């Protein structure tokens, strides 16, 4: 690869963190296999890897939430053991998690105060937070309620909370996955400023383009092992992806059909809905028609009504007026999710565990979960008694597992035992196997590795080639540009008109995503 030279680990006094032979074993799975990682002072270091490559395990060991089975961690030249997040913080390691741990009903300052061990009064914390937020270009009002803040602003709270502890190393887990392109740019400026001050950053991401843009060095993990240390700027996105996946990444193949007007398969007309709780988004007069043979992408920053929109379209939340949602020319607004499935619709929710699948149930039971009525003929017997036909369900499960290349450790494991990507392949495969006329997918490749993501996207496009209509809700713009025929944007519970892909630009979409928020603060 010729990258070993460029990625030669720094040595000597400039080295902040030196990890040697770190190993973590879960049962028969070696999540981290003798991992080496060196981070110099004042560098932004990328940690790249597919889902299940061992990134999270490695980071959890560095932050003290998991204890390694073997290996050593040398911090500032001294060997240390990190037994808890508190100890990690005392050493000077801070972490910003992908999923925020904030109380929505408390203010930003109160949330920050909660995580500090000290007994400093909240007013002092608020003042310090405000000062920090301005000096790092992360505008934040410490007195604002978290529930009222956008996801980008919530992330700023997490970052400031982390900075207040004056860490030498900041670990960021997939930080841009919830941001608009503009917000991400701002974050990069902050990171560069921190690097200028001599702080080190461990940046976990699967977005190769970002890694190339801001990271000085990268460590690539595959199947729990380090496969390369390299300088991402000397690599191409393709070569980085190959290191991660261990082979050429399958490129999604699609040709734009020349404006064949298919029949409308799903029509949403003037869908409005009051917010269901204090922190939920209302839906405001949404109309959308998706025709046979097309993918319509719905972009937007998380928490702008996408979840509510998905529930309203799937029938988990029903409408008063039957004509609000029409599936294959039949009014479905008052039908529940089972009724809408019977009309030929399929649904893939954002949360895999606990929404799309029951974590503690076997895959075959999770097959029945979404198809107990649509496939009642095959899966159930005994008429009204509804006896479960295990053999038929297990055969279908096996077919889906083979079709989607779901990798699993046992014949019929519990859903929670699968990695995120493999479970997502199963959940999408479960719907595709039904050959739905309409498929609505929320975040199809969230946290899914590159290989599985490409497979999922290809499967969605292939479905439209057979005359189905697909709606993809995603925060990943690259994904939407790759597979959509038209893109709409959700902001504050409203949906923009769709923009044909030929006319859509990242800037246009990004501005719509920002909505009325752009220019605030």
């Amino acid at each position, binding site marked *: 690869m010729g990258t070993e030279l460029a990625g030669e680990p720094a040595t000597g006094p400039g080295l902040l963190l030196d990890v040697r032979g770190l190993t973590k074993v*879960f*049962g028969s*799975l070696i999540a981290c296999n003798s991992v080496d990682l060196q981070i110099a002072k004042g560098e932004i270091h990328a940690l790249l890897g597919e889902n299940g490559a061992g990134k999270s395990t490695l980071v959890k060991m560095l932050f003290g939430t998991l*204890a390694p089975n073997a290996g050593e961690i040398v*911090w500032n030249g*001294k060997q*240390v*053991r*990190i*037994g808890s997040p508190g*100890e990690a913080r*005392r*050493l*000077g390691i801070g972490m910003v998690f992908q999923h925020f741990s904030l109380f929505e009903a408390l203010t930003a300052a109160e949330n920050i105060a909660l995580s500090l*061990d*000290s007994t400093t009064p909240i007013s002092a914390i608020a003042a310090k937070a405000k000062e920090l937020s301005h000096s790092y270009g992360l505008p934040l009002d410490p007195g604002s309620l978290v529930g009222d803040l956008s996801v980008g602003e919530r992330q700023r709270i997490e970052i400031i909370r982390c900075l*207040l*502890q*004056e860490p030498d190393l900041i670990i960021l887990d997939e930080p841009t996955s919830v941001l608009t392109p503009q917000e991400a740019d701002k974050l990069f400026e902050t990171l560069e400023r921190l690097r200028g001050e001599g702080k080190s950053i461990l940046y976990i991401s699967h977005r190769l383009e970002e890694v190339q843009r801001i990271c000085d060095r990268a460590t690539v993990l595959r199947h729990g092992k380090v496969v390369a240390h390299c300088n991402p700027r000397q690599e191409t996105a393709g070569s980085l992806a190959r290191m991660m996946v261990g082979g050429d990444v399958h490129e999604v193949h699609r040709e734009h059909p020349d404006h064949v007007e298919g029949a409308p398969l799903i029509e949403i007309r003037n869908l409005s809905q009051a917010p269901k709780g204090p922190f939920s988004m209302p839906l405001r007069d949404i109309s959308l028609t998706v025709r046979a043979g097309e993918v319509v992408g719905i972009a937007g920053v998380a928490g702008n009504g996408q979840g509510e929109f998905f529930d309203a379209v*799937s*029938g*988990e939340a029903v409408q008063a007026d039957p004509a609000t949602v029409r599936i294959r020319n039949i009014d479905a607004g008052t039908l*529940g*999710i*089972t009724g809408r*499935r019977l009309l030929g619709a399929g*649904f893939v*929710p954002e*949360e895999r565990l*606990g*929404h*799309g*699948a*029951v*974590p*503690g*149930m076997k895959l075959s*039971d999770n097959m*029945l*979960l*979404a198809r*107990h*009525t649509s496939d009642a003929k095959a899966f*159930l017997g*005994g008429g009204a*008694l*509804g*006896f*479960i036909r295990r053999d038929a369900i297990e055969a279908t499960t096996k077919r889906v597992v083979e079709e989607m290349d779901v990798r699993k*450790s*046992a014949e019929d*494991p*519990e859903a*929670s*035992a699968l990695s995120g990507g493999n479970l997502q392949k199963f959940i999408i495969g479960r719907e595709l196997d039904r050959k739905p006329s309409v498929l609505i997918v929320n975040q199809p490749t969230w946290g899914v590795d590159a290989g599985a993501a490409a497979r999922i996207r290809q499967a969605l496009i292939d479905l439209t080639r057979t005359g189905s209509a697909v709606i993809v809700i995603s925060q990943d713009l690259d994904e939407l540009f790759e597979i959509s025929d038209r893109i709409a944007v959700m902001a504050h519970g409203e949906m923009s008109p769709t923009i044909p892909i030929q006319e859509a630009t990242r800037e246009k979409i990004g501005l719509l995503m920002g909505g009325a928020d752009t220019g605030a603060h």
Partner: protein
Amino acid sequence: MRLELAKRPQHSKLFSALSPFIAFVLTVIAGAILFALLGKSPGAALYAYFIAPLTDLWSLHELAIKAAPLILIAVGLAVCYLSNNWNIGAEGQFVMGAVVGAMLPILYPGLQQSPLALPVMLVMGALGGAAYAAIPAFLKARFNTNEILTSLMLVYVAQLFLDWLVRGPWRDPAAMNFPQAPRFTGYAVLPELLPSAGRANIGILFALIAAVLVWILLARTRKGFEIRVIGMSPRAGRFAGFSTRGAIFFSFLLSGALAGLAGISEVSGAIGRLQPSISPGYGFAAIIVAFLGRLNPLGIVAAGFVLALTYLGGEVAQIEVGVSDKVVRAFQGLLLFFVLACDTLIHYRIRFVPSERLAAVLPEAKSDA
């Protein structure tokens, strides 16, 4: 050295099966310590508790009499608990089932001569229990009330209602001022299984049939699948199109009906009449039975006999060893405690971690910012 719980990737099938047995062994050990502290010989006391009742035919019949209501109630409770509905009020549903079922022989004594009397009483008992369970179900489904509190409080309402009935309007005029209703006669009495050998009645058959039917329901049908999905993951249940409210009513009505059936069977069989107290806490002990049986109806059958044994053993021990009958409750409490504690082993494994690791970090720690 310290103990650490490490989460297993999948739940352990071995410990799912083993944990009730480990719990039982721990209960026996704790019981032995308890007796030793009371100054009794642990060997003799444990023998009186767990072996003596099994040594003659008469007491095996008594065991069946005690096990029947425990199993009937616990099988219904398993459906509730699997669907995440915490019905703690089976004792009240048991009492109301007995009261409603007893309306026929008490209000229309002449009908006791009809062979239809018993089936009608049993159905009325089941309906009475179900109707009483519908109250906490409705409150939960409609107002999101905590069913643990409402169902528990309704137990005391039912007990006092029964008390008032047998001291007031339903008191037997021929009972010389004893607070009890007239004795059931004719076809209103639950037939005995083998009258020559002991008192056991066909109530135990109801329990076994109910256990098998509910097992089939839970393990083999869509309805059972629905119950388990809603219990494990309500959001996924909604995604599947299952109704959470439907599950609340289904599980409460089913468990109420089974508790009510147990109640009318008890008064028309073992007791023979309504009196101020008709249960030694079956409705509460059945909660232990349900968990000891791992919420599996077939496991519950075995667990029902174990708990029945503690009742019988308590009587034997009271007579032969001279310990208070309160020891029965202590035993049952210990058992539930150990059952719940041992369930940890299903999802976690215990690891011993040497303690030097902890000390190693501290000297490196940097002072707070």
